[in-house]
């Protein structure tokens, strides 16, 4: 995964309305899996990671977005769902293009991948364009670019 700053930036670039909810959606896959994983690793709970892994897969994330949208008033529920899904999709697209093995390019990840097709298939794959920490090294460039983007948006829309 790229770190959450880059995920938030990607969400921000896509969002037209409900920016905060797009942010939440963009962070959601990692919040639902990395935090429990860190806890399982710390407590040495074997196999705990396997419980939460589907919460980084598209189909269960649609259900999570649906579930969260039920926490909002019915008048905005549909918009909330769309905004969350937009953020989630931006997250998954960024992760799809990240390398999981030392070699770049098309990768079949037979063990401990993102399970894109769960629960229909266990076939795991991704297209590795950049390393897992590449986005971190690009932050000095992406953060000013975002600031510039927000500034121009604000100027345009008053």
């Amino acid at each position, binding site marked *: 995964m790229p770190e959450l700053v880059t995920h938030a930036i990607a969400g921000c670039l896509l969002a037209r309305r409900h920016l905060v909810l797009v942010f*939440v959606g963009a*962070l959601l896959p990692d919040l639902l899996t990395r935090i429990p994983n860190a806890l399982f690793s710390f407590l040495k709970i074997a*196999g705990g990671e*396997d419980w939460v*892994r589907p919460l980084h897969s598209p*189909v269960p994330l649609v259900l999570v977005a649906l579930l969260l949208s039920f926490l909002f*008033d019915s008048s905005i529920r549909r918009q909330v769902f769309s905004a969350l899904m937009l953020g989630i999709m931006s997250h998954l697209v960024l992760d799809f293009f990240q390398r999981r*093995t030392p070699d770049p390019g098309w990768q079949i990840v037979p063990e401990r991948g993102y399970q894109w097709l769960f629960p229909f298939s*266990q076939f795991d794959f991704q297209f590795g364009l950049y390393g897992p*920490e590449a986005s971190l090294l690009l932050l000095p460039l992406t953060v000013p670019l975002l600031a510039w983007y927000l500034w121009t948006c604000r100027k345009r829309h008053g």
Partner: protein
Amino acid sequence: MTSLILILFLLCWRSFIVNSQRTAAYFSAIQDGRALTLTHFEITRVTSEDMTIQIPDGRFPLVVSPPPADAEVGDIVNLKVVKRDGVLQVTACETRKWRDLKIWISIPVILAVAWLFGRRYRFAGKQGSFLPQQRGEHA
């Protein structure tokens, strides 16, 4: 809502069952020399000749050699291996030295988004749901 929670729980349970078997099968394939890639392993022991790596939750320890020059206990690595003369030989290794920084950098983002959420939405106790804040009204 209850149905959704139940479906999600069943999906997680299915993942636990399927992945426990799948991971065990994959590791026996590694030990037989039939599989090549290992992602997100933690180094738990390192010497000049070999190192022990395992899933961070403590499962499937494997001895591979040679360790990368900068390997330290606690590092997370992605690697490729091949079995030669009964030993798992590392052919490519990527040490994720910046991983911790990535985690620390993410914490302020989570806090900032939580703060923005609190400014933008409020929980209406009567309706039992979140509503957008009215203009000029803040949590």
